[in-house]
């Protein structure tokens, strides 16, 4: 699973946003705003980390149980899939 070409995570002030550039602009001309967990998951997906690595990172950063981290991960990835940002 990886983020499609053309979707970029950017930081503006305190906000983490995703914008489309290049050909992806044809499909998406809005912005996605991410919360801190979303930013963590997105940036790890960008680095092509595995699901297990990302879940471990969420558990460590937020000191949450594995079940909670798994839910966070699958909800967020589900949203990204629904929006067509990952393939």
């Amino acid at each position: 699973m990886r983020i499609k070409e053309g979707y970029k995570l950017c930081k503006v002030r305190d906000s983490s946003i995703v914008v489309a550039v290049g050909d992806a602009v044809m499909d998406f001309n809005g912005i996605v705003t991410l919360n801190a967990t979303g930013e963590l998951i997105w940036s790890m997906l960008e680095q092509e980390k595995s699901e297990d690595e990302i879940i471990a990172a969420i558990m460590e950063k937020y000191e949450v149980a594995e079940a909670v981290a798994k839910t966070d991960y699958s909800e967020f990835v589900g949203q990204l899939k629904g929006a067509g940002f990952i393939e």
Partner: protein
Amino acid sequence: MSMYNIAGLNVSIEPVYGQLRSRCSKYLADDQSKKPQIRIAVTKERIRGFSEKTAELSAEDCEYILAGADFYSGLVHFNGMMLHASAVALDGRAYLFSAPCGTGKSTHTGLWQQYFGADRAIIINDDKPAIRLIDGHALVFGTPFSGKHDISVNAAYELGGICFLHRAEKNEIYEMPEKRAIYALLNQTLRPVDLDRMSMVLKTIDAVLGLTKVYSMGCNISQDAVRLSYETMKKGLTPQ
């Protein structure tokens, strides 16, 4: 080819038609020998290509629109961005009212002129002012590219505030949360397609948001609307 000074930049333009030439005339540079920072070259082929897509526009309208697009596209490289807004200056500060076409940006700034007098409230640019960051200040410049009506002044004012308008029966205004402000600003500028230039625009937005407040206002056509936008934005001014 002539050299113009627009938004503090040396811009070379070679107007073919009268409209572009006359609208640019007050921006003609004193020193014609400077090296251009932005080159605008609207060829007849481009005008022809564009006018085929937009049958209702004359060739001189097309030239004017394309020259504006080239200028704002170049502006991105100089810590700048266009905002689709009517910009009014009052007491040394620029207040930008942005909205989609047909909402009533110009109507609102027109009401400012009625309320404060046209000698005190000056329309900097009625449609597409340029914002540039210079020495830690956000400055708003008039440009020759001001939409349907040729309403602009060749001057710069410190940005006082940005307000996104929508029509409403009752006047109300609030400061926009940061993420919504970023989205609104990106929606009313020339959004670059490539990552490099997109990053430049986001850097400009980042700095603008650090220097000024962004509001959302529902407004009707009244002097109450003017009082509300002015008083709210004045209170929110950051020290110069």
